[in-house]
Every structure is written in C-alpha cells, then in structure tokens.
C-alpha cells in the first residue's frame, strides 16, 4: 500500500488501483497517474486524485447519473490507443465543474469524457467530434418561476 497526504486527508491506495492517463488530462500533461476516490458513500461524484501531485484532484461523475442517454461514439483512434475491443469493460467519467458556493450552476464536460480501459487501467481524455455534446452541460435547470396567483 502507498500513502499520500491529499487535500482530503491521508489516502491509502494499492498500486493496482492506479489509472494511467496517456498524456495526462488535457492541459495537465505532467500528471498521468490517478486513483478514483469517493468522499461520501452513495455519492454520484468521485475525485480523480493524482498520486504524483497530492494537491491535485478533479471532481468527476459518471455522466449516466445525470444524462441517462449519454452514449458518445468514441473515435476509433482512441479505441486502438487503449486496446478497447467491443466487449472490453470500460469506465467513462466526465469532469464536473462547480463555481465556488454555487452548486446549482454545476456543469459537466460531456465533450471531453475520460475513457478508462477497466482491464488494463489505461485511460485517455477524449475530445469528441460529436457536436451533440457540450463542454458546459448544465445539470440543474433553473426552477420555474412560481405561478402568479391572481388577486
């Protein structure tokens, strides 16, 4: 077991839990090794915690929890890179962005999913060509204005 001091506290992880992102996440090329952690049981969210940089963790979620029909076609090049056959178990996360103090303004980056080969634990952040998915997908829609009651 390895131990690191993260911003959430002390984290123990086994080497076999580590996910290797080819080229890191986009904009973070120097960090390629992560573990997926939960801070709360039954939360729909996870943190992608860098094991190389203890202060670095990305909030992520499985997009199906929020967008049930999310099923992007992954580029063939990515499937080849990760050695994904049709029946290879895989995990898909998207990053989640929450402005400080404004959870209702949370967005998911549906255009840049994190694709993980669950067998080899090799992963890559994919940039989808499919314009159906947006970089800032708003999860919570504004509550409708309360209906005005006639006096």
């Amino acid at each position, binding site marked *: 077991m390895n131990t690191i001091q993260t911003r*959430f506290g002390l984290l123990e992880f086994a080497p076999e839990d580590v996910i290797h992102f*080819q*080229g890191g*996440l*986009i*904009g*973070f090329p120097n960090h390629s090794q992560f573990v997926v952690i939960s*801070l*709360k049981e039954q*939360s729909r*969210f996870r943190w992608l915690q860098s094991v190389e940089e203890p202060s*670095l*963790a*990305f*909030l*992520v979620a499985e997009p199906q929890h929020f967008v049930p029909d999310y099923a992007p076609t992954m580029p063939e*090049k990515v499937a*080849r*890179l990760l050695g994904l056959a049709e029946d290879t178990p895989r995990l898909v996360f998207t*990053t*989640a*962005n*929450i*402005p*400080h*103090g*404004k*959870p209702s303004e*949370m*967005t998911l*980056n549906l*255009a*840049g999913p994190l694709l993980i080969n669950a067998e080899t634990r090799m992963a890559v*952040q994919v*940039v989808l060509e499919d314009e159906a998915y947006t*970089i*800032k997908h708003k999860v919570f829609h504004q509550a409708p204005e309360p209906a005005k009651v006639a006096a």
Partner: protein
Amino acid sequence: MLVLTRKVHQSIVIGDEIEVVVLEVRGEQVRLGIKAPKNVTVHRKEIYEQIVDENKGAADVRPEDVPE
C-alpha cells in the same frame, strides 16, 4: 513562428512522423489532413482551450460545494 506557403495537396512534415496536408481551400476555410502517430493528439485549438479551462475548474471545486 515559421511561415510556409503551400498549395492544395501539398504538405508539410513535422519531425519524422507527422504530416499536415492542405486538402482544400474554399474562401476563408482551409481543410487540413493530419497524419500523426496514435499517441499524438490533435485538437482544434479553441476546443482544446475550453477543455483545459473545464479541467482546471474541476480541479478547483471545493468538496463542500459538491451536492449529495
């Protein structure tokens, strides 16, 4: 910045493994074909920058702001 002039169907090579071909020029639009090894990622810059921003945002989320 290196500046080169190319015609349609001409290309440039970058290093030994990357080739960029001008496929078509139509008004203000240029179509490029890119041959690169599978570990080299190619992105439209504006999309790339937006994803960098989203990743930075996701790394800046405070745990107390995360909904149940």
